[in-house]
């Protein structure tokens, strides 16, 4: 089945990470399907079936709102991420979605030059074909740790 083509999935993940790391946050919602869910949680919460997220967007509008808030409303020190995205495991095909798991590591670089390993975890994704492109219908970001340093502004 076409959506499960590993090279297309790899390109989607690479383009997603580059958009965030290059501060093209306005492009970030375009990687999602019209009907979508994006949440960030921890491995502990995920294991226990606790549904709350650090970010929780169950519409594409909410993704746009997150970007607008970061650009116009929220105060945080200038910072960037460097995503290192690992190899994707293709787990299943169901409901016309491809279910995948991809590990990631994010270094946060602060304006004063400080670099820290900010987050590690895995993307649990449901991918769909929409308008000829592969999109995230669901992207559940499961961080290995429940501990966030200072604040989480930019999406993972």
């Amino acid at each position: 089945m076409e959506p499960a083509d590993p090279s297309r999935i790899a390109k989607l993940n690479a383009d997603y990470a580059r958009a965030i790391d290059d501060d093209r946050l306005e492009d970030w919602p375009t990687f999602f399907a019209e009907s979508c869910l994006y949440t960030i949680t921890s491995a502990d919460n995920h294991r226990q079936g606790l549904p709350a997220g650090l970010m929780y967007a169950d519409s594409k509008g909410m993704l746009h709102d997150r970007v607008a808030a970061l650009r116009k409303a929220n105060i945080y020190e200038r910072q960037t991420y460097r995503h290192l995205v690992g190899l994707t495991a293709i787990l299943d095909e169901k409901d016309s979605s491809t279910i995948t798991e991809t590990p990631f590591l994010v270094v946060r670089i602060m304006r004063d030059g400080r670099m820290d390993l900010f987050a590690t975890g895995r993307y649990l994704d449901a991918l769909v074909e929409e308008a000829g492109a592969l999109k995230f219908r669901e992207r559940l970001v499961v961080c290995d740790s429940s501990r966030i340093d200072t604040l989480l502004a930019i999406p993972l």
Partner: protein
Amino acid sequence: MSASDPARAWPDAALTRVPYWLYQDEANYRTELRRIFEGPTWSFVCLEADLQHRGDFRTTFVGEMPVLVVRGEDGVIHAFENRCAHRGALISLDDQGTAKHFQCVYHAWTYDLQGNLTGIAFEKGSHGRGGMPPSFSKAAHGPRKLETAILHGLVFASLCPDAPSIEAYLGEEIVGRVARVLRRPIRVLGRFVQALPNNWKLYVENVKDTYHASLLHAFFGTFRITRLTQGGGILVSPDGGHHASYTIDRADDRSSTAYREQGIRSERQDYRLADPSLLDSVDEFGDGIQLQILTVFPGFVLQQIQNCLAVRQVLPKGLDAMELHWTYFGFADDTAEMRTRRLRQLNLVGPAGYVSMEDGCVGGFVSRGAAAAGDEVSVVNMGGDGTESAETRATEASVRGFWKAYRRYMGH
């Protein structure tokens, strides 16, 4: 540091000037742990909902002291220091679980669910040699036990047997404000830890500071979740240590131009949500209060922002570091619609919260800004110099209240 050191004294009796060395002095910090966190105060340790069955336990901290909180065989919630009476190792290495007893991994000393020492490995030695002296009393050795109190599903602990009852500690008004929110059985929705690069007091002051909320947080101001021109006010307990601030939406505020006229950044007329379902809230407590932030001295917060509910535990981790332990919750009888509403509104709070993200970094900004200002003072003068409850939030009365209680416990 000592209060008798002239360079380390309060400027005067007033609460309107706070010296910066209070956030920077290591000896003062150690004194805080002893006199405040381990003193006659109450610290939140967990939700009663976390310990539903006998043997259920959680590990947490009171100040820097590791603590085990357990529902015992007797059905009562007990708390004791998570420290083996033998050599001081942690007794439990888990965040939560269910146990019949606890056994230290180091030398297998065993404790019951109330923290009593019940077993010593090789107590009688081996082949008639070694072992503990016959005079050794297990009953006389054990981790320190804490008093526990439950208030509307919140479990508090105190190391001081002479602490007043939790109701007397908080006072009738604050107890009423806790009861207002916690009327039904709780269901936990998630937990997160936020590590903050600042002294614990800077965060507690921030939570008590109603003046900053709509100024620092643009999200609040623009969407009229809370603005100083809205109705509401602040309750400060008689001892100053506890507070509840609240906001009531008022129709006449919708045309208010006070923020625009003062050129305040948080007023942005052009900012609209693409998906306003985030702010779709219901008046679930039936009193029109959109927002209530409540603190219990020294380090507990109960938060209701519309339908977004959470408790926050302030844990000091050294002079310049602290952790904020967030527990997001709803109620056990929430409809699916209400649960979704809460999950959406939780975007407002926590480490990535639209309105609380800034609170994660602003304490660090103060720490860095005042790094060389130990002998200087900050100004806490909005609304005068008192600590009384007020019908406005353009006041720093509850921040002064914090320092009033702080000075009393510390003997400053």
